[in-house]
């Protein structure tokens, strides 16, 4: 226990980086995910194909591979960014595939008549998505989105592979000196569990708040 208290500043800094990575990546993934969903449900065949290709590509490649490829591969074609920026971009792009699929399930849960009615009163595709379909779709996918946010939090631990000192990397560094893996990693695990619990709590509240009684 004392080993955790002795190294609290380093671990705390790691926790802050983990939370930054999680928040920024989730935001990026949410924006991209909406775009992916729009592609996936678009009436234009080519756009649907692009959306499908995006989802299939990023759901079928391990995040670690993407991180390492982007970090070491992109500089060779002249694209070099700060490690944190690279990690946020890659995690966003990766998680957007999952968010896109979750949102699409929500869109599909909105009855067909809603879309048809929206088009019938003269809304364009974008307008009908924005004003009619997505607001209803989002309500049904609060829980799945929460699960994705939790998975994303855990996935940020992979950023350690590209030199970012997040909570996991900070714990590894402390253990390197102290050689007491069990208290150190249990401590880090508890911190991750607390983040997950917070996300779960928020999604639970959000779901009750947004519910429409029909």
């Amino acid at each position, binding site marked *: 226990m004392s080993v955790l208290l002795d190294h609290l500043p380093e671990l705390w800094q790691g926790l802050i980086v983990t939370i930054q990575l999680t928040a920024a990546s989730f935001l990026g993934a949410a924006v991209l995910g909406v775009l992916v969903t729009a592609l996936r449900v678009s009436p234009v065949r080519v756009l649907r*194909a692009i959306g*499908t*290709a995006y989802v*299939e*590509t990023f759901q*079928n*490649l391990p995040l670690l591979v993407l991180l*390492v*490829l982007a970090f*070491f*591969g992109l*500089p*060779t*074609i002249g694209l*070099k960014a700060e*490690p944190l920026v690279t990690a946020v971009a890659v995690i966003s792009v990766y998680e957007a595939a999952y968010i896109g699929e979750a949102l699409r399930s929500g869109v599909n849960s909105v009855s067909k008549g809603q879309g048809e009615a929206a088009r019938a009163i003269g809304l364009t595709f974008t307008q009908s998505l924005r004003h009619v379909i997505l607001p209803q779709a989002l309500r049904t996918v609060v829980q799945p989105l929460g699960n994705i946010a939790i998975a994303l939090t855990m996935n940020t631990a992979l950023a*350690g*592979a*590209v*030199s970012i*000192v997040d909570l996991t*990397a900070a*714990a*590894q*560094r402390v*253990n*390197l*000196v*102290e*050689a*007491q*893996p*069990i208290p150190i*990693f249990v401590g880090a695990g508890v911190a991750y569990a607390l983040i997950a619990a917070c996300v779960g709590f928020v999604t639970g509240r959000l779901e009750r708040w947004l519910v429409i009684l029909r």
Partner: protein
Amino acid sequence: MLMKKIIAVVAVSFLGLAACGEASSPAVPGPSKSGTDVIGQAPVAAASDILPGSTMEKIKQRGELIVGGSLDAPLLSQQNPATGEVEGFDAALGKALAKYIIGRPKVKIVNSASETREALLSNGTVDVVFQTYTITEERARQVAFAGPYYTSGLTIAVKKGTSGIAKPEDLNGKKVIAGANTPAIPAIKKLAPQAEIITFGSDPECLQALTQDRGVAYVQDETLLIAAAKKDPSISIVTKPFTVDPYGIGLKHGDDQFKTFVNAWLGKIQAAGVWQRIWKDSIGTVVTGDAPQPPRIGSVPGS
């Protein structure tokens, strides 16, 4: 069909990208021989040394020595992708120890990471750890160390033409690359507290990061850096080793009987010249000259 084609194109272009990255920094420095002929000459313990009820007897009955080690440390313990054999200094010593106990070099390597090896030893998953395991007093409270069996030191590599880095203190205020979970991290923190340390999991990644200017210097074990500088002329080494890292053989804490046994084995292979030949076959392929004098067993606090 279209989808599959798109995926194939994307996958191929990614592979191409990866290949470009690799070509500029070869991952495997130096040829390393498997050293099985050396193991053939390694000693075997007398039956009277295998005390009844001891750890050695348990290993002998199992017919296999379980070693905690790496599979990706060049010259020390690296799996040869062609043969599947694990080669290098640490790996060969593990085989020699297995031969000493069992009579034949039967080793199972459990790929242990720096964050798990104390736990693996204390719960008995592995019998010994050969993994550039620097003996420190903190660690000696969790595990027992036989040896030291080798002494190495950290040094600094930079891209050729970099000026202003001649000693560890010069790293202050600069971005410094180090291997994740290597003793380089605490060493840099001690000598250059203002340095920003960025870490990567493996040696090839660290070198790639150095050549891509992610940091100005790379602090790593001298042996590995000599091998890297030999392969890649754009890298140069700027200091003599500035730390002394005695590597120990990790054993279960409190198993004094086994520790005495392993120390006796180490003394025997050093006296018989087996240690020196193993060094020649591994580290000696990139470091010129004869094998160094092995460190005195038990000479380090914690061993």
